[in-house]
């Protein structure tokens, strides 16, 4: 279970809307099941003009991306800025919190991890334990219906995505 306070829930939707049609991405942190902090991370795809920067993507996705302009690539994919991701991880550690989830938006498809999402999440699994990072959930914000954004969370293990319950927590008055 992942419990997200309503202000962060709302900010993730605003983040997705602000970047639409580009995908947005970020990190959620907290303790136990409770998210208490959010970090917006830059999706750097729109500014990556060098094909070597796309090395992360699998062959199928890569041939897709190569046919697009950098701006168009950010509509169908995201790449977190590594430095911002690392700074967020450091801040989370210093505050005694735990990285709970990575989030990103799908601006015109459902809130389900794509094959590329799963492949890259599994790649992260390969070194996560060695770097002392707890298993993250993967949260997706779908703007497929612009009026009704959908947020879902998943566990990605052994190349399988399993939905986990996600709760919008009201803030104490």
């Amino acid at each position, binding site marked *: 279970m992942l419990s997200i306070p309503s202000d962060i829930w709302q900010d993730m939707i605003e983040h997705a809307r602000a970047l639409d049609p580009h*995908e947005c*991405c970020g990190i959620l942190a907290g303790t136990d099941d409770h998210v208490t902090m959010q970090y917006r991370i830059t999706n*750097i795809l729109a500014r*990556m003009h*060098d094909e*070597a*920067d796309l*090395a*992360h*993507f699998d062959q*199928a*996705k890569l041939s*897709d*991306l190569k046919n697009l302009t950098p701006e168009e690539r950010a*509509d*169908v*994919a*995201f*790449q*977190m*800025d*590594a*430095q911002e*991701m*690392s700074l967020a991880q*450091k801040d989370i550690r210093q505050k005694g919190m735990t990285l709970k989830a*990575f989030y*990103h938006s*799908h*601006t*015109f*498809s459902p809130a389900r*991890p*794509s*094959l*590329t*999402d799963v492949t*890259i*999440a599994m*790649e*992260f699994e*390969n*070194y996560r334990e*060695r*770097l*002392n990072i707890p298993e993250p959930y993967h949260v997706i914000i779908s703007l497929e219906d612009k009026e009704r954004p959908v947020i879902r969370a998943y566990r990605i293990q052994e190349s399988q995505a399993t939905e986990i319950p996600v709760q919008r927590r009201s803030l104490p008055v």
Partner: protein
Amino acid sequence: MITVRIPTPLRPMTEGKSEVEGKGTTIGELIDQLNAAHPGFKDRVCDERGEIRRFINVYLNEEDIRFLTGKDTPVKDGDEVSIVPAIAGGTHG
């Protein structure tokens, strides 16, 4: 020797190996030496200005070298260096 962990996307540069051994007194030297052993390696890790690419983090043991002294970070025998791409994803396929 220094053990360097290679992420899947960069393994075409290292004949498919997930770990290679390297030498050097700094991260920068280590990258140059790996490039000599695996031509093209540096170009995949560093941009045209020689900086680590924006989608990659390089860890010395458990610390990001950006929080140490970047490419000047000293390395010694027995150290482990991990090249770690930041999280990414795609909508279709």
